């Protein structure tokens, strides 16, 4: 028999045990449940599936979820780069505290963020009351959803860009300057292109998170069908109606979107690795 080895040989013991447990755990927690979701979706034939994904309520929620997420992720990409730049490049009192603060949206439970944002931006809240006299409503409108999505997505771009900027060789900037580039030229033509893979990765992560976000959005969203109803909330409504098939169909659409985003992130990394080399 040919000596086929699944893994490369190593003297370190424990592969069977740890690998076996890892696969078992992932099977039970992730793979089987997600496979079950797709099986459930396939129980629907096209006649049943199509109305679910073409109904006006679903389409409105789809547009809102992806649209608001895209806008929030784009905004996060811009300010994320700015925040990362300031945190890495400038020295000022309170920098460390600010740096720690960036992770707040990761640490703060989404429901807490949700009720807090809703109270700030409601017409009688701290910020909402500033805009209310001009007839501008923030909470319970798509604008409020956008704000919640900016909140939960802020750390992604910062944390993707920060390490790359930290390791960015000063010599590269100096080289650009000796070649006659002004500072804005150096930033726009030398540094930002080099940061682009990190920015795109952070953008994709923020976008993926925003599309699926539930807790911090539902309190500020208003949740009116076809106006301020996001996709995850639509799933919850379908579940409460015990319409599992419809919920599964919507979830399947969202999962496919997640997979595509994950794939995009991996492709960005492979592409930048190949082009720019490692390190």
């Amino acid at each position, binding site marked *: 028999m040919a000596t086929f080895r699944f893994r490369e040989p190593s003297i*370190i013991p424990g592969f069977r045990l740890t*690998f076996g447990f890892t696969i078992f755990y992932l099977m039970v927690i992730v793979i089987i449940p997600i496979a079950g979701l797709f099986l459930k979706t396939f129980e629907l034939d096209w006649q049943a599936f199509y109305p679910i994904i073409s109904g006006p309520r679903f389409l409105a929620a789809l547009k809102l979820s992806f649209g608001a997420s895209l806008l929030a992720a784009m905004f996060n990409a811009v300010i994320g780069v700015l925040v990362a730049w300031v945190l890495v490049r400038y*020295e000022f009192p309170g920098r460390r505290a*600010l740096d720690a*603060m960036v992770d707040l949206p990761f640490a703060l439970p989404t429901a807490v963020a949700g009720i807090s944002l809703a*109270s700030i931006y409601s017409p009688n809240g701290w*910020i909402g009351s500033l805009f209310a006299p001009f007839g501008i409503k923030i909470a319970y409108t798509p604008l409020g959803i956008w704000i919640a999505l900016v909140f939960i997505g802020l750390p992604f771009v910062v944390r993707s860009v920060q390490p790359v900027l930290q390791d960015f060789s000063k010599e590269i900037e100096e080289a650009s300057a000796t070649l006659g580039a002004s500072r804005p030229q150096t930033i726009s033509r030398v540094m930002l292109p080099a940061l682009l893979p990190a920015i795109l990765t952070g953008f994709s*992560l923020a976008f993926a998170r925003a599309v699926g976000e*539930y*807790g911090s959005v539902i309190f500020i969203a208003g949740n009116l069908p076809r106006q301020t109803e996001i996709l995850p909330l639509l799933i919850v409504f379908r579940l409460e109606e015990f319409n599992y098939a419809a919920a599964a169909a919507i979830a399947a659409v969202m999962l496919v979107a997640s997979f595509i985003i994950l794939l995009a992130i991996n492709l960005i990394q492979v592409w930048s690795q190949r082009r720019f080399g490692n390190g």
Partner: protein
Amino acid sequence: MADAALHPARPEAASAFRSPVTEPLGFRVFAIGVTVLLMALFLLLPLAAVFVEAFRFGLDKYLEVFKNPDAIGAIKLTLLVAAIAVPCNLIFGIAAAWSIAKYRFPGRAFLISLIDLPFSVSPVVAGLVYILLLGSNSAIGSWLLQDFGIRVIFAVPGVVLATIFVTFPFIARELIPLMEDQGNGDEEAAISLGASGWQAFWYVTLPNVKWALLYGVLLCNARAMGEFGAVAVLSGKLRGETVTMPLQVELFYNEYMTVAAFSLASVLAGLALVTLVVKSWLEWRYADQLATGARTH
């Protein structure tokens, strides 16, 4: 805060010289100002609002919530869920990191992506998949219920399961890159000196990764106690039975018991602050013993 933007420090900025690798002072001050403003507006304000709302009617009103039996039940359940989910994920994290970082095998990269999956799956979808799999009208669900009397969905096991799903990547993600960086040299040395695999793990690997492990547990715990979406779908919101703290916050809020909602929320916000402080301390003190590179959760 912003006025002190004097980086890099120059003993005498006498000449018109401008360092080619930084921006003019005016721009630096502006950028710092904008950053501080944005962070205050988007991050600090929501955090502050939690405490302001909680204490709006004084300390007595604030403390009232902790006498509410629903709130007490929610706190207990949250602690219970975390006490089950975190150790499970700890074991998984160590096993996954050991098998992925110490060996080379086909499909390794795929396994790493799979571990990252919960970060990009909506918590609502995560809850839904378990309902479909284990709900009373599914094959497994009805089998468990009728033959063993175990209810998973709309019961505590479902809440635990949902929490495990959303938090299992945290520890593994901290350990894998770190153990990869550290390589196999230490363990190989230990084994060549006659240590068993377990001994190598206890006396060599574990001390090398202990801070990263703590870091991962910290993040895992914070998320486990704060998870909302997935738990909301699976719990059925039976008061005093399947309601965790974040769910109880929602219930209070929707019943217009605003102070109670924010008081309970302030406990979670306090937990978040402690997490951030410990996390920053670990990053500052043990930066070299934590995984390097991008930290995106």
